[in-house]
């Protein structure tokens, strides 16, 4: 009885803010972060990054004097929760820019963003579907797509060892399978032999058959996609036991310190491609700025991961688009924001990335780093590689 009454009361209380559709004149960003769920490690960092950039921008005068409003919600890395959060935030705050939590959500909302919402949109994803300006000019990513990342790695391999034997090791998910088809094409173009494709569940405990298969096919380079930490570490460790002498590489989400810690002394075996400078590269001006800000505001935080950098970069671009769109006729609207996005050429971001030019709604630039087991850091082993 009491329970029902409480329920009805709180329901009515919450109807209040819903029914007021506030038309915001100030530039507003709304984001759905995967704050809980399997991607939580990225969501926590990402939401901190967005908050930091917005705070920094507002301290520096905002968008031509107007303060940027920023609201976010947790999407639990579940599509329906994320989509509900998206619609809730949109109905409440009427933002001009939105940020999503996953590839799935992006795919689901893409057509509606184009036809109905018309907001500039990016997400925790590097799927090629979000970097297709002809199909959907509102979606973009501030990073190379997974396919472009594969391209960077394969280009690097082709230079190191032409005609090498390649294996793709990916997870049985959207995240894992996305770049594989295009990756096969790139292999052919670069004259590399794709000899094996291995699949595993994200938490796979036993990857013996996959490792043995790669050994039998004499794989030289194995590229991981769709995993963050396990079973990459298990594969690398067990390949030593089974006598597989391959070099292991990975894409953006696995090229993080947490993987190096997991690998321990085998960290030197892992090479990865990432799009941004690392937090420990203190000589990079933008990294220095981030470090100062972090140490001032969050003295307990010791490290900011690449997920932080990705959101940081995206939000930098958001702010820049706001500024440019504000000067256009009609002010800050979704369409003006897309035009502003396309106008970003050679935008200086203080070394976080090389000067940014948006190409086909992504930034096809990457850098290859190798793990260092002694310093537990990544050392750059290539310069910034551009994919054309």
């Amino acid at each position, binding site marked *: 009885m009491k329970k029902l009454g409480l329920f009805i009361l709180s329901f009515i209380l919450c109807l209040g803010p819903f029914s007021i559709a506030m038309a915001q004149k100030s530039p507003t960003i709304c984001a759905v972060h995967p704050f809980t769920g399997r991607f939580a490690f990225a969501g*926590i960092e990402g939401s901190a990054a967005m908050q930091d950039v917005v705070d920094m921008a507002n301290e520096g005068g905002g968008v031509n004097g107007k303060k940027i409003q920023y609201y976010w919600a947790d999407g639990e890395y579940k599509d*329906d929760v994320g989509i509900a959060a998206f619609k809730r935030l949109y109905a409440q705050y009427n933002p001009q820019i939105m940020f999503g939590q996953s590839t799935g959500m992006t795919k*689901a909302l893409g057509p509606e963003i184009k036809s109905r919402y018309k907001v500039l949109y990016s997400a925790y994803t590097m799927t090629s579907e979000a970097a297709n300006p002809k199909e959907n000019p509102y979606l973009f990513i501030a990073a190379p797509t997974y396919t472009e990342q594969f391209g960077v790695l394969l280009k690097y391999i082709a230079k190191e060892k032409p005609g090498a034997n390649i294996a793709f090791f990916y997870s049985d998910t959207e995240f894992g399978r996305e770049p594989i088809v295009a990756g096969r094409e790139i292999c052919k173009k670069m004259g590399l032999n794709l000899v094996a494709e291995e699949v595993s569940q994200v938490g796979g405990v036993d990857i013996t058959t996959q490792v043995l298969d790669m050994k039998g096919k004499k794989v030289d380079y194995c590229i991981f996609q769709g995993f963050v930490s396990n079973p990459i570490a298990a594969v690398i460790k067990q390949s030593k036991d089974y006598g597989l002498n391959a070099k292991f590489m990975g894409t953006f989400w696995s090229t993080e310190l947490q993987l190096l810690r997991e690998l321990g002394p085998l960290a030197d075996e892992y090479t990865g491609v990432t799009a941004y400078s690392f937090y420990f590269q203190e000589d990079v001006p933008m990294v220095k700025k981030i470090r100062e800000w972090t140490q001032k505001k969050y003295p307990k935080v010791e490290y900011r991961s690449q997920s932080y950098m990705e959101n940081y970069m995206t939000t930098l671009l958001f702010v820049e688009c706001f500024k440019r769109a504000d000067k256009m006729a009609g002010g800050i609207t979704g369409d003006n924001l897309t035009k502003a996005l396309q106008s970003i050429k050679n935008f200086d971001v203080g070394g976080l990335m090389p000067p940014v030019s948006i190409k086909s709604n992504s930034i096809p630039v990457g850098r290859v780093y190798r793990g260092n087991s002694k310093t537990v850091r990544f050392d750059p082993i290539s310069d910034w590689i551009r994919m054309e």
Partner: protein
Amino acid sequence: MRCGDYKENYIKDEEIFQSRFVKFWLALFFIFLIVFPFIANAYMLYIANMIGFAVIGAIGLNLLTGFTGQISLGHAAFIGVGAYTSAILITKYGVSFWLSIPLAGLVSALAGLVIGIPSLRVKGLYLCIATLAAQFIFGFVFVHWESMTKGITGIHIPPPRIGSLQFVTEKDFYWITIVFVVLGVGYARNLVRSKMGRAFVAIRDRDLAAEIMGINLFRYKLTAFAISSFYAGVSGALWVSFLKVVIPEHFPFMLCIQYLAMVIVGGLGSVIGSIFGAVFMTLVPELLNVLSDMVKSYAPGMGKLIIPFKQVVFGFLIVSFLIFEPRGLAEIWNRIKKFFTLWPFSY
């Protein structure tokens, strides 16, 4: 307050709406349902639609688990089968949305029949695990049968149409959902007071005795699976036409758990329990989200503590519900009604 409440024949006893009082309030409720889309914003309509789909799915599961006593952990797979069938029919074979819905239900029902076969050999927990196995096997098929399901890329579905009228927004789709929900609820409510419904309940309570009485276990158990999967298929087909996209990751094991929670918290073996459960399981997480948003705006740094607390609260609600009111929301509803029926003479 009702008094002089006596029935003179069986037909009157079996009536679903037994008094003018109930009929009056039901009419009011329908009027509310019709007025609702004109006063609500897009987000609330989205939630309303999701509740509608959940109701249909929950009724299906309740028919199987609550009325017939067959525990099924595979409900999400049947929703997926219906969803994919509808999507493939619409996009690949050009079937209209209206035809694809019942077809999707039928294909799901067939899947349900197949998965129901182990129920003839095993009961209880073992059946539970068999259906769980089916859930994962279907999940595998969704991802790997790429020629049909386009694997992880998924299928984009155009919005449903009647002639030139398109149902694009949440408000438009609301009407479709309402129609199907009313149909589904009506059919289920009638089913449970019919011969088949009584057979189901008999199987749940004492299946050996039921067999002795002449109820063909084989036929009725499979029928229960088929009908339950039909509902699931329709729910899935509606859901993905609403979302306009279907990907395999829409049907994880967690979805089964969610539907089970709806049915159990709502009340096993009761149609109105399914409705309550569906509403509860959809609204409460959203409410918790809104509350945590409000708390977040007062204490911005506490995000890391507040947001997971939502999960704790939710789990806690389910656990305490089950401990203190194991027969679910439907039972609470009945108690309220009984209280008012005899008020003020409730002693």
